[in-house]
């Protein structure tokens, strides 16, 4: 419902946010019709739920963290341990759920830091322009001159391997994508005539940013964050797999796979189940993100 003044005319200030809200509700309608995206959404919700309530949903919550029970080590999947036990005797299923906790935390922290920062810097670059813009975009180019994983590896080189340093490394790269995205949108809107018109009418810069630019960024950013979540988890798992991320005993899925791979092929369950888990989590985010992109009518390439 569009807001209106006493004459029933739509108030122009709110129209861009209103357009976004409209897009959201239409997007929801379209989204709910797309089976694939619903499946993706369900998967994500399922895994997030499991991770959030890990303590309550796992059969052996005390097996998480530092736990040893060598008597029961290397048990194949059975009724007692659906996914078998690992080299230390801990239940693989439980450790997977707790491991996914770390993966989600990674995604949350990385995106929580890099997205706002990226948006801010992108707005700055796009709106202010001039030397600031050049400087910011050059720095962005430098960070983007290496593939994400490699860059993260290089940054991790500076620290002792640990999960928080990995988060830092990934976060310090990730802002660049959002910066670029927002910068592009800001630049294109800034040159539109209606912006210049509102400046003439006395609108402040902040007003223009909040009223005109941000609503246009909202949809692409939502889609990107969803797809990013999957990708960040992928990169994080890669770092852990190489030994640079989550360290035992607080393993995440990548570390688990790395450890498990040493025992292939006889103790296959130590590798296969964590791999399946991470695949499904990332797939869920991808399906969800793709569906959102469709529903909110954002172009490919985001």
């Amino acid at each position, binding site marked *: 419902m569009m807001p209106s003044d006493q004459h029933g005319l739509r108030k122009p200030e709110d129209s861009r946010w209103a357009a976004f809200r409209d897009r959201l509700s239409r997007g929801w309608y379209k989204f709910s019709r797309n089976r694939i995206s619903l499946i993706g959404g369900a998967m994500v919700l399922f895994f997030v739920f499991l991770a959030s309530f890990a303590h309550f949903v796992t059969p052996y919550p005390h097996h998480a963290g530092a736990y040893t029970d060598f008597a029961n080590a290397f048990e194949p999947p059975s009724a007692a341990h659906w996914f078998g036990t690992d080299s230390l005797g801990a239940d693989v299923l439980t450790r997977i759920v707790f491991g996914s906790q770390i993966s989600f935390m990674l995604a949350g922290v990385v995106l929580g830091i890099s997205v706002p920062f990226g948006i801010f810097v992108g707005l700055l670059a796009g709106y202010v322009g001039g030397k600031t813009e050049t400087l910011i975009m*050059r720095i962005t180019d*430098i960070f983007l001159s290496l593939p994400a994983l490699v860059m993260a590896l*290089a940054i991790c080189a500076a620290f*002792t391997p640990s999960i928080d340093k990995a988060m830092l490394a990934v976060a310090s790269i990730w802002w660049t994508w959002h910066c670029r995205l927002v910068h592009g949108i800001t630049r294109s809107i800034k040159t539109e005539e209606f912006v210049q018109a509102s400046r003439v009418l006395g609108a402040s810069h902040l007003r223009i940013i909040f009223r005109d630019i941000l609503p246009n960024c909202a949809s692409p950013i939502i889609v990107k964050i969803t797809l990013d979540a999957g990708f960040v988890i992928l990169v994080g798992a890669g770092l852990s797999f190489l030994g640079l991320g989550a360290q035992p005993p607080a393993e995440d899925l990548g570390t688990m796979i790395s450890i498990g791979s040493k025992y*292939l092929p006889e103790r296959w369950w130590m590798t296969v189940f964590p791999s399946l888990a*991470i695949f499904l989590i990332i797939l869920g985010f991808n399906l969800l993100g793709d569906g959102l992109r469709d529903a909110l009518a954002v172009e490919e390439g985001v």
Partner: protein
Amino acid sequence: MQFSYFLLRRLLYTILVLFGLSILIFIIARTLPGNPARLALGPFASKEQIENLERTMGMDKPLPLQYWTYITGIFRGDFGLSFQTRRNVALDIAHYLPATLELVLVSILWVLLLGVPLGVMAARYKDRWPDNLVRIFAFVGVAVPPFVVGLVLQLIFSYLLGILPTTGRLGLMTAPPTHYTGLLIVDSLITGNFSALGDAIAHIILPSFAIAMTGIGQIARLTRGSMSDVASQDYIEASRGFGIPNRIIAFKYMLKPASIPPLTVLGLTFASELSNAFLVETVFAWPGMAKYGIRAILRKDFNAVMGVVLIIGLAFVVVNLIVDILSGYIDPRIRKRQEEA
């Protein structure tokens, strides 16, 4: 004329970016906590030995001076000394690079030879089962971590079926061909060493496919989208109207404009392949840059880290430049935009 000017500008800019990259990594690598000298010499080294090593590595000098020494060294081919191997990092890289290069090149081959035809097929049978199959494959390809793909392939083809080897570039019993390029396939072809050729190919199939998985899916999807976009264009209908046969239209008039978006993505695909290589090399114990680089990171061997980073950055940048040139060559509209920029 204008195009070469544009090229020059791009080249200059990328060199600038590489410089920026080197500064960034340099600062990170050298201002880090933890002492690489001690790590290299082990826990029983004396203070004197550590200080000696530090002096040899120039760690006692101020940071900007260290950077300057390093950069000027690069131009002489001196990439600094590795803490681990105590020799010029450039030599180390020359030793490990061909393995990774070969792997990545074969992966790109997979992407082109599988990705493009799959995409064309998906576009041809749009919304029918080949299309849906390709889309599922693409989704899965992007969602699975490359090391998982590697492990699964290893599990199935090496352990279960036993038809392909598990690790390494050559079997223990096979003598490597004479070293010309370091690319085993090329070398064995040149020297006519067919047993080595077969073995090298057998060893490279699984890791290269694992690396290529993501890229195949992306390119297939993009080709599909691009082909179906082009197919609905007016100029295709017009060429039908002029009586040009369908086969010619499909392979010439549709494929050429449709190849632009996949081409641009090829640059990004290459980047993801480089990252994937790091993961997959570990799975298959491939003696490449990954092994060297990761060990360097864990030991804080900063010269080695710098070397690896710069080489990868260079490779990335070169590939992007090639992609830009090719795009400009194929599509005059892009050329125009490039010239105007």
